[in-house]
């Protein structure tokens, strides 16, 4: 068993939650408490296993693909599909974020779901499988399958356990995302037929041989699917509905993990496969990101529902991620990496906290509150710390991410870099405006005297269970703010390689990072690896490090 585990760790991580979830789904309604407990223990166990096994790699090592499983799987119309999972610097922390947030979310919303709670937890576990698979999949069709498979459990989570308008929200979420992916599928199949495989490295090499206009078209099809997921302005309107209608756990997973798949898709596939098209469209992408930053913040400012405010703040924060990616600098891209994690932690925590408030008061309207600080001091403290992280106060995680992104954009060398970085700074100010304005209305001031108001329904401060959920999050907020290198040093070398080859004039260098580690010769990467002035460390990927 241990032998199998160490050889198939990734397979275990991807499929264990789904199998566990399917087992729990078989529990009768009466056994819901037991089912919930088992689900939480399962998810927590998975987190500990993933953390213990994945963090054994040296933190500063120049590694690329460290954990990997490859084997031929099946063929579609003569095109071989590979069962290919791997973890490297680009997805390590996203995988850990997923396994970290899932049990925490379950614990945080332990009492929130009362109807068919066992099935609810089971669906979250199945969702976790989909997300982990999507983060780890290296074969594009494999990735696509996970990408689409995730929609199904999420659709049910929103559609069954959601708020009053859950049907509209669930349909919108499903159709919006699906319609984006369809064009992507067409582009994927087109390119795969040309390349004769779904392996991204070979597809990238093929794409480079195509006329530039075709590359651009293919890139746009990829980008559309990813941009909807992020979501990038103006494709964001599914998000507020889905977030507001989804149950707390759904919102946390959606904001915490699902959105990152979009930006991760850009980084993992769209950028290395179509480097020329990516830099060709970097300006429009950056412009939409800046609009998203300011627009999301301005709209968040006028919301009356706390949850909707947080939802729109997501639009703004994910705009920063996209801006960092569009900068095509190491600093900006690393900032985007960190900001993905930041957003997962901070916004996930905000949704959890709003859920805790809603469980007690049964309202989320800002005007229904006032003076919550006197009623729930512990809750207020946690909420305030997370708010500081969300508005990017230095020494919290939010600052480092935004700071790197803005600086990376400013020095990008693109003529628009300085202007966009300057305008995007406005988002940092507006972030403080909407968050602190809401905090003032909800927490400070005299208690809302209205008997029906939310404040008057708050009879208890946070329980031990809820505190246990928040403490790890607060620890992470400061840890990431004080020592961001623990989290982004592992992605440094992959990103340096990626950007270097994306900008290199020699086409042979271009596809190197996409190829399998064995074939990435040292010499190929060594030549003038000086993107952004980072020291060109030779990527020493030996056979031993790749645990097959």
């Amino acid at each position, binding site marked *: 068993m241990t032998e199998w585990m160490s050889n198939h760790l990734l397979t275990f991580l991807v499929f264990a939650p789904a199998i566990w979830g399917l087992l729990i789904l078989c529990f009768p309604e009466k056994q819901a408490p037991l089912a919930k407990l088992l689900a939480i223990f399962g998810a927590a166990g998975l987190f500990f296993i993933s953390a213990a096994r994945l963090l054994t790699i040296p933190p500063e090592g120049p590694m690329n693909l460290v954990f990997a499983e490859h084997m031929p799987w099946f063929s579609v119309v003569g095109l071989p599909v590979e069962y290919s999972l791997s973890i490297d610097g680009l997805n390590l922390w996203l995988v850990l974020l997923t396994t970290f947030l899932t049990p925490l979310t379950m614990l945080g919303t332990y009492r929130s779901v009362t109807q068919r709670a066992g099935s609810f937890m089971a669906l979250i576990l199945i969702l976790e499988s989909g997300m982990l698979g999507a983060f780890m999949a290296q074969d594009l069709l494999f990735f696509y399958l996970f990408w689409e498979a995730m929609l199904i459990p999420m659709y049910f989570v929103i559609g069954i356990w959601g708020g009053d308008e859950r049907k509209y929200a669930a349909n919108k979420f499903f159709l919006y995302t699906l319609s984006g992916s369809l064009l992507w599928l067409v582009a994927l199949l087109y390119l795969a037929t040309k390349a004769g495989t779904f392996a991204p490295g070979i597809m990238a090499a093929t794409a480079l041989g195509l006329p530039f206009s075709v590359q651009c078209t293919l890139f746009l099809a990829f980008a559309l699917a990813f941009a909807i997921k992020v979501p990038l302005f103006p494709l964001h309107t599914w998000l507020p509905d889905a977030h507001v209608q989804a149950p707390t756990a759904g919102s946390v997973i959606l904001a915490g993990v699902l959105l990152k798949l979009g930006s991760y898709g850009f980084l993992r596939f769209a950028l290395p496969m179509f480097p020329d098209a990516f830099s060709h469209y970097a300006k429009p992408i950056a412009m939409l990101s800046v609009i998203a930053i300011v627009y999301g913040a301005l*709209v968040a400012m006028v919301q009356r529902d706390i949850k909707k405010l947080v939802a729109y703040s997501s639009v703004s924060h994910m705009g920063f991620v996209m801006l960092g990616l569009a900068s095509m600098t190491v600093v900006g891209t690393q900032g985007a990496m960190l900001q993905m994690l930041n957003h997962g932690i901070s916004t996930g925590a905000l949704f959890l906290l709003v859920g805790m408030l809603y469980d007690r008061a049964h309202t989320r309207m800002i005007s229904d509150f006032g003076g919550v600080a006197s009623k729930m001091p512990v809750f207020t403290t946690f909420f305030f710390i997370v708010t500081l992280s969300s508005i990017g106060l230095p020494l919290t995680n939010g600052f480092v991410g935004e*700071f790197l992104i803005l*600086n990376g954009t400013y020095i990008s060398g693109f003529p628009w870099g300085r202007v966009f970085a300057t305008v995007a700074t406005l988002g940092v100010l507006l972030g*403080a405006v909407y968050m602190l304005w809401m905090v003032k209305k909800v927490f400070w*001031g005299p208690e809302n005297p209205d008997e029906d108001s939310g404040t008057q329904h708050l009879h208890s401060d946070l329980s031990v269970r809820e505190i246990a959920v928040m403490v790890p999050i607060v620890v992470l907020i400061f840890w990431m703010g004080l020592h961001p*290198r623990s989290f982004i040093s592992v992605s*440094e070398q992959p990103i340096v390689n990626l950007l270097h080859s994306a900008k290199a004039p020699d086409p042979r260098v271009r596809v190197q990072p996409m190829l399998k580690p064995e074939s990435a010769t040292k010499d190929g990467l060594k030549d003038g690896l000086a993107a952004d002035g980072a020291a060109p460390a030779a990527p020493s990927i030996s056979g031993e490090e790749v645990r097959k």
Partner: protein
Amino acid sequence: MQKIAWLIPILPLIGSAFNGLIGKKAGKKAVSIVGVGTVVASFLTALWVFFAMKDAPGHRLDLIYGTWMATGSLTVPFGLTIDPLSGTMMLVVTGISALIHLYSVGYMAEEEGYARYFCYLNLFVFFMLTLVLGNSLPLLFVGWEGVGLCSYLLIGYAFETETAPAAGLKAFLFNRTGDMGMAIGMMALFALFGTLTIGDILNQAGHMQAEVGFGVLTFATLMLFVGATGKSAQIPLYLWLPDAMAGPTPVSALIHAATMVTSGIYMICRLAPVFSLTPITMTTIAWVGGLTALLAATIGLVQRDIKKVLAYSTVSQLGYMFLGLGSAGFAAGFFHVFTHAWFKALLFLGAGSVIHAMHHEQDLFRMGGLKEKLPITFWTMLIATLCIMGIPGFSGFFSKDEILYLAFLKSPALWAIGLVAACCTAFYMARLMALAFLGEPRDSHAYEHAHEAPMTMTLPLVVLAVGAVVAGFWGIPKVLGGTFAVEHWLEPALTYGHAEAEAGSVHEGPAMMLMGISVAAAAGFGLFGWSLYKNGTEKSERLAAKFPGAHTILLNKYFLDELVEGYLLRPTRWFGNVLWKLFDVIIIDGIGVNLPGALTRVAGDFTALLQTGRVRNYVLSMGLGVLVLLYIFLK
């Protein structure tokens, strides 16, 4: 051994953590000991490190403790720099903080949130010291935003009231607006110099020529100055400071008078070699400073709230400091920071003592005659008043006069503005003292119960009063036979990185005459205010009635708050609503998302009509189809 300098900021942080986490359970006594003790320990450490720095080569200690951020070309270390500038500032901050922490023990004794208060106040000291000692701009920015946060929390200390949190929010947002400029300035410097470590930037700047016209460097420094206007309450971002008086009075003394609000000036001094390369920025700084000094001083003439008068006075004095900086007098500007820290902290603490005695009455028009009841407060405050008026021999005289003199060299118009502001200062300070301490008590009930404060509060008053007198002798100007020692002391910091140190500021012009004019003007207006108010408010009310228009405008602070609300905040909210309801809901969702959905449904409904279930319809359409096919194939 000098490495222990990290203790200077960390000690207060430990105090803050203690008071925040277990302070409430540990009791007020433990909170007082830890809260005051950690700051005093920090002061003693600072003193030790200060002397170590004095002996160090080049009066400079660069201490690196590790790396904060490092990716691509960007590396930011955790490091502290101690040189004459940061060393002096660090002593001022820890010293005055220690006194005000002690004062708070008495002032806040009755408060419910005692532990919370000390948690925030300790945290403030931590952030302020990070700002002062940090060796890179991002680290300085940590302190910069951190003190803003503490200011927000302390202004909103009484969170269960309506006004205090609103004032806190206003302060934070005005500060953040400035911080935005600061962030942009940092990015521009990073793009230009490729580093954010202050020492490295200055080393490179030392080899550069002054910028002609409006270039990248001017843009960067102007943006940094925007940051300074936010933190140091200058036009156009000063509106938050008067409202910030909603916080407890010791907070006003420490944060909103002595330390935090001077960080804008400190930052510019820190980067003096860069700023002096950009003449456009320097001129802007001088004019903004001068105009702020004047504007705030005129508003201060008519305010009735004792703390509001002092708040406008602070804004005005900060304006002087910028006027000094902009006139190429970095040392003079910083010297005024130094002297102002003493006498303004003293004025606020004195005001706190008055408010404490009057049971939280802050209206000057309801005070009067307190001289006998509060002798220590009266005499110490009188010293501070003489300082701020610029009466020879008191500290404010030395620092303010140096600034006015340099302003004259820059432009006589700036000097004139500064002089008018000085007259206003003398008037409103005399008015404040006369209204509070002289004449008949106007609220006899509160007067009966008034009494001098406990030792923990009077001791800091006395210490500060001594400091306020002595501080000035550090910078006796050359025209009076001194050496302006402060400039010589700060020189290694202010000209760091320059290949060869520049000579001190050249002294020419009618220094003696200018000094005479300003002293005479200050004394004259001081006596005028004194005589107008010493017997009550009647004379002044008659005077106000003669100029109703001017009086209303001043009383309402030029209606600037209303302008900001009406022309900035409301339109922004309106714009947000338009974006949401028009763009999101109608255009994107309505036309882009739901319309295709609706069309699909309509198309479905339409085709559903064809499916009638009547066989004859199907036969008919089949027959028609066969005919069409036949026609096509047989043609």
